């Protein structure tokens, strides 16, 4: 089968390996761009959230490239993500694209459907191949994550503007092409050295500000959805602390949930006093991680969410209390397909300015440094 799938940050690198291991041909949609979003929004109801629209755009792109099947994740609420696949199937049907959908989710209801999906995915694959593919995919997912984190640390310290982003892109491409675990490891090893070389030597200028990014997973990891938030902050001289990792999400939501573990317990402990439990999506994570970041003495928190995201609206209402109690500045950014770059950049600059002044006052001198100061 020629299988396409929507983008989620750089997860496509791992998904490709996984699909090859299963004996299918992955049809990776072109990198998400403005046109993808416009296409997706055109076919979706206006009230649906940004991730839905971008994913639908990805699917349309993938189908144009000759895919005959869509791989999607599902779930059982209360976040809308769980029902995305059904709605997207209906919308594609309405425009004459009657395609097969394979939804990965914890089976419930009609079991024969899941059995059919499973058979479709695994037919014609040998177990050895599948296992090798899965291991490679897992290694790649972790490698991608490691590279991105290195880039986050390097960007505020880079000697030449935009070098980190370019270097990261090249390394990600190498990981994508790697055919064995050994190659992935080699790329990672050399990349570590490469990132070190990009940094300025000596520490004469003090340390960069550290800002944590929390929020809905898609808008945190997908550069188009968040208008390159991480890169923008990095270029402003800020070290971004990521709280959401794709590998962690896969472990929590696929492996641990399938085994029936309670994944919310540690988060509930962190969010105690603010939110008593699961509200769907990443609402609880947002509150829990914000409280944890505040205790780690991060300088500020940026919260990003798609317009009308139900769980994050709750989190947004509670975040001011976290901000007040822990004396930490929080900026909530709501994004949708109409978000303009200039307004976004202005708000980020103003926020970074404010945080810098606060930190300067706390330390008693101007130790936190920014490129323009």
């Amino acid at each position, binding site marked *: 089968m020629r299988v396409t799938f929507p983008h989620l940050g750089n997860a496509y690198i791992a998904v490709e390996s996984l699909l090859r291991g299963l004996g299918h041909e992955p049809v990776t949609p072109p990198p998400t761009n403005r046109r993808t979003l416009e296409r997706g929004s055109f076919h979706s*109801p206006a*009230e*649906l*959230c940004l991730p839905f629209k971008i994913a639908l755009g990805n699917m349309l792109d993938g189908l144009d490239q000759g895919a005959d099947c869509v791989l999607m994740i*599902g779930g*059982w*609420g*209360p*976040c*809308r993500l*769980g*029902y995305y*696949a*059904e*709605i997207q199937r*209906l*919308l594609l049907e*309405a425009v004459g694209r009657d395609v097969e959908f394979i939804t990965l989710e914890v089976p*419930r*209801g*009609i079991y024969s*459907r899941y059995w059919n999906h499973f058979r479709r995915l695994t037919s014609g694959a040998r177990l050895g191949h599948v296992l090798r593919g899965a291991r490679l995919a897992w290694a790649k997912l972790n490698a991608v994550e490691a590279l991105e984190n290195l880039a986050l640390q390097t960007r505020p310290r880079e000697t030449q503007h935009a070098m980190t982003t370019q270097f990261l892109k090249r390394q990600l491409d190498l990981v994508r092409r790697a055919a064995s675990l050994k190659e992935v490891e080699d790329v990672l090893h050399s990349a570590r050295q490469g990132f070190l070389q990009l940094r300025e030597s000596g520490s004469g200028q003090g340390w960069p500000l550290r800002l944590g990014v929390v929020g809905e997973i898609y808008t945190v990891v997908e550069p188009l959805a968040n208008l390159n938030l991480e890169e923008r902050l990095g270029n402003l001289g800020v070290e971004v602390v990521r709280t959401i990792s794709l590998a962690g999400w896969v472990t929590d939501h696929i492996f641990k949930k399938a085994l029936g573990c309670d994944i919310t317990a540690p988060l509930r402990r962190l969010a105690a006093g*603010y*939110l*008593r*439990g*699961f*509200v*769907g*999506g990443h*609402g609880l994570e947002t509150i829990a991680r914000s409280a944890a970041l505040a205790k780690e003495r991060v300088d500020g928190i940026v919260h990003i969410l798609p*317009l*009308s*995201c*139900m*769980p994050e*609206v*709750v*989190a947004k*209402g*509670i975040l*001011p*209390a976290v901000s007040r109690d822990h004396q930490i500045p929080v900026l909530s950014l709501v994004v949708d397909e109409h978000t303009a770059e200039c307004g976004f950049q202005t708000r980020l600059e103003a926020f970074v300015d404010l945080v810098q002044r606060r930190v300067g006052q706390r330390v008693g001198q101007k130790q936190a440094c920014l490129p323009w100061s």
Partner: protein
Amino acid sequence: MPLKAFVGHVRFLARQGLGLLWVPQVISLVRGEYTCPNLLGLPDLVRQYVSPSVRLLTPVLDARRGKRQLDRGYLSWGLQFAALPRVLRAWQKACVVQRSWEEEQGRGHPAGSALTILLLGPGYLVDDAYLNGNLQRKLQELGVAVVRADLPDAVTVPACRYLTKRPYWTTTRRALGALEHFRRTVDGVISIAPFGCGAEAMQGVLVNQRLRGANLPYLELYVDEHSSPVGLHTRLEAFCDLLERKKSG
């Protein structure tokens, strides 16, 4: 928007010098389903808007693991106030009232009007004349009989079987079930939803898809704190004109 109204109510009450406030955390009412995510965090959200001196009473109503878990939620909440026998008596009384109310809902199908419309939407919006711009009254003035989507789960759950995946929001599932139930007897469908309601956006797609072949007009209304009743009424009048013309051929 309904959240804003709720917070408004809470703050009004808190200003009256109240010491105790009842804000339930309604997670789920039917096995395997959820209410709205905003309700899941309601008590914690309200907590931010009232002074710490106000105590919040928050029973946790959670039926994700079945009805028995829900009953336990009610009972354990009652036990905070009285001994078990008394709680049980109150519980039984409440059950009787609830059952008779449910039976009443199933019956009344108003006849005699020229047009019948199925009104879909969450209860806090359909029943609140201020938030929905006096929608029901206006429909009455236009001479339209309104059928509500409040059907017992015994009707709506089987009615949703045609879907490949059952919706996991109770309001959406009930609305779609009611749509199946009344599809052949009503002349049109109106849905009303607060702007930004997530489940409603998906429900719209499902309703549209179902009505496309059925030749049944469908009006989607979204309200928020900026919508004016006048604009709403114009749309209602236009919709009813259309229905009348369609009916008379």
